């Protein structure tokens, strides 16, 4: 009543005009909300965010675009991408593979034992491998031309074997993946240290060390391996029956089994793929560090899972793509690099990384609830 008695101001126009203006304004708001919603639900959301992040940081860190820094970013990205892709398979299953770090350590040790050309008796004489697989003349195939391929195959075998043990325990004994892979991590990390008595194995063949070297451009063996693996993993997830089964088991294991999906085989295969990817990452990291290290990757797990979560791979399972993993790893590496370039203290860097992973997990929850409300 008060409103109708209120004196009309000259700029307010007629009631019809007001109604039109209101409709236009609410339409704009709706459009923006819809755009924001589409952006949030877009599978390229993390990529957009990364681009925005880079744009914001460019004036603050001019050296972000320095060729040497781009080379650093890329060389840091490839090994993490490889191991994160392996984790993606397991996360789609609603599982988790904590043992990836121990696979990297164990495989790097076994590979180095095959490939090394010499070993110091002062360091290794108390190793159980001394005199059997390791001597002053090196490892099993130290001087042989087959050292590198056999060494890499041995590393892959280690990854597949540990992955098989994990997958078998989860699939057949119905053990929680967290406990199974936690125990594997402890067991194989300790075994890697026991076998080498905590020593690093050096003197690896030049051909092996060249895998991670970048000469003159951004091309390296690590890049080729990581991209090849990403393409294969993408095809496996999107174009194969195994990929479809993986999502089905991840969404509902019981329902998928009733529908005729061989859930147990699928679970074992996913953990074996995770182990194999971790072993390949072990190749890239140990080639980069020029040694087999029994503690290789011991602090890397949060980076692996963090990159997956940031990419949008759901911990609840049944959802995930290799492209999301690539975006997640890219964002994570850019974040770590930029924080380093800002010369922040180690503690702040870890605090920021932790906050970003937490926000990404919250974002995943928000996206899921929006999707459900749209159904």
């Amino acid at each position, binding site marked *: 009543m008060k409103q109708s008695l209120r004196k009309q101001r000259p700029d307010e126009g007629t009631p019809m005009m007001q109604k039109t203006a209101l409709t236009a304004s609410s339409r704009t708001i709706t459009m923006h909300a819809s755009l924001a919603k589409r952006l949030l639900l877009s599978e390229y959301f993390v990529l957009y965010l990364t681009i925005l992040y880079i744009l914001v940081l460019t004036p*603050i860190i001019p050296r972000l675009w320095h060729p040497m820094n781009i080379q650093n970013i890329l060389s840091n990205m490839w090994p993490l991408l490889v191991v994160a892709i392996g984790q993606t398979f397991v996360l789609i299953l609603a599982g988790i593979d904590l043992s990836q770090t121990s696979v990297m350590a164990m495989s790097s040790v076994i590979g180095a034992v095959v490939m090394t050309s010499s070993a110091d008796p002062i360091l290794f004489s108390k190793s159980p491998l001394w005199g059997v697989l390791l001597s002053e003349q090196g490892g099993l195939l130290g001087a042989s031309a087959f050292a590198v391929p056999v060494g890499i195959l041995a590393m892959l075998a280690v990854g597949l074997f540990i992955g098989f043990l994990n997958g078998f325990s989860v699939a057949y004994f119905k053990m929680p993946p967290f406990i199974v892979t936690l125990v594997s991590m402890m067991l194989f990390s300790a075994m890697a240290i026991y076998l080498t*008595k*905590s020593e690093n194995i050096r003197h690896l063949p030049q051909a092996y060390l060249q895998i991670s070297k970048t000469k003159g451009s951004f091309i390296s063996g690590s890049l080729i391996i990581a991209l090849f693996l990403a393409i294969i993993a993408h095809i496996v997830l999107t174009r194969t029956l195994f990929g479809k089964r993986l999502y089905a088991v991840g969404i509902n294991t019981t329902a998928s089994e009733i529908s005729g999906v061989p859930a147990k085989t699928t679970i074992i295969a996913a953990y074996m793929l995770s182990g194999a990817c971790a072993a390949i990452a072990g190749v890239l990291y140990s080639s980069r560090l020029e040694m087999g290290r029994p*503690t290789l990757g011991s602090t890397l797990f949060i980076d692996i899972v963090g990159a997956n979560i940031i990419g949008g791979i759901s911990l609840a399972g049944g959802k995930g793509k290799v492209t999301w993993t690539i975006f997640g790893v890219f964002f994570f590496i850019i*974040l770590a690099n930029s924080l380093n370039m800002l010369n922040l203290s180690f503690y702040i860097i870890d605090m920021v990384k932790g906050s970003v992973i937490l*926000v*990404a997990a919250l974002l995943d929850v928000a996206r899921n609830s929006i999707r459900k409300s749209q159904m």
Partner: protein
Amino acid sequence: MKKLTILLVVMCLLAPTLLFSAGAKEAKSDEITIAFCFQDLETEFWVAGHKAITETLRENGIKVIEKNANEDANRQLEQVKDVITQGVDGVIIIPQDGESAVTIAKVCNEAGVPIGVFNRPPSDRSAKNLVVVANNEVIAEAAVEHMAQEAKKLGRKVYPAIMVGDLGDPNAVGRRQGFMNVMAKYPDLWAQAPVEIPTKWDANVALANLQSAMQANPKIDFLFTSSDFLFPVIKSVLAPLGKWNLVGDPNHVILGGLDGDVTAARLLEEGYLDATGVQNLFYEADLMLEAMLSAIKSGEKTPDKWMDDPGFALTQANLSTKAEEMWGWVLYKEKK
């Protein structure tokens, strides 16, 4: 509402970096910038080493970029590559181990940035670097020599043991060798070959292995630890066995160490410790800075020089005259 949520999420993602970036400054062009990349600060020795290096650099007007690798060799490599990209004039590292020091030094050599390796030397000399390292063998030998002289006074044979560090670390190798030199020098003094107790530079590993060693060899009465940071572990094992006693007590285990940290200073003053080998941290920091600045000023990209800290042994015999030269003693007195 959803729009606001999205905006908030994006802001949350960007805020921490932007917030902290406000405090980050670009180096002035005429200012020398040195990156100090250390593996961690897990013991008093490394905390003091960190303090010695950073204070010495800053006192000389040098901008210091600090990076902590949290005991991860791969992370340290990435950090060194990042600081090279930032155009630092030099890099000083405390590496995770001698092997990773070689890999990192090679990266610096390729980039033409002088690198200094502080206190934990590279495992070989295939890369060019400035290395400041205590003469671990000589220092350990001096400390163990004093312990041997104390053992002689007992007029009987003693049961020796050494807590060995991570033998991937050349420091640990040198310390073990210094101990073994004294073992070889007085063959008639020992009742048996020395018991070697692995520690891997890890207090938990040391505790478990020392407990086992004391059960298997309860007569051990001559114990040298390759690092002073293990004294609390030694006390926790010896005290329940009635073997943690003052010097001169019939049940005293002749005890020695190496580093010269605050705990060793306190134990020397209280009379539980016979001797400790001392690394002169502040002298080492000065040596490193001098060599690094000289290389930077002369435009030398890959300087290659090994510098020794001769160190000394602080014992119950020279405590009153030499204590002030030990870095741990100075810090102990400051804390007091």
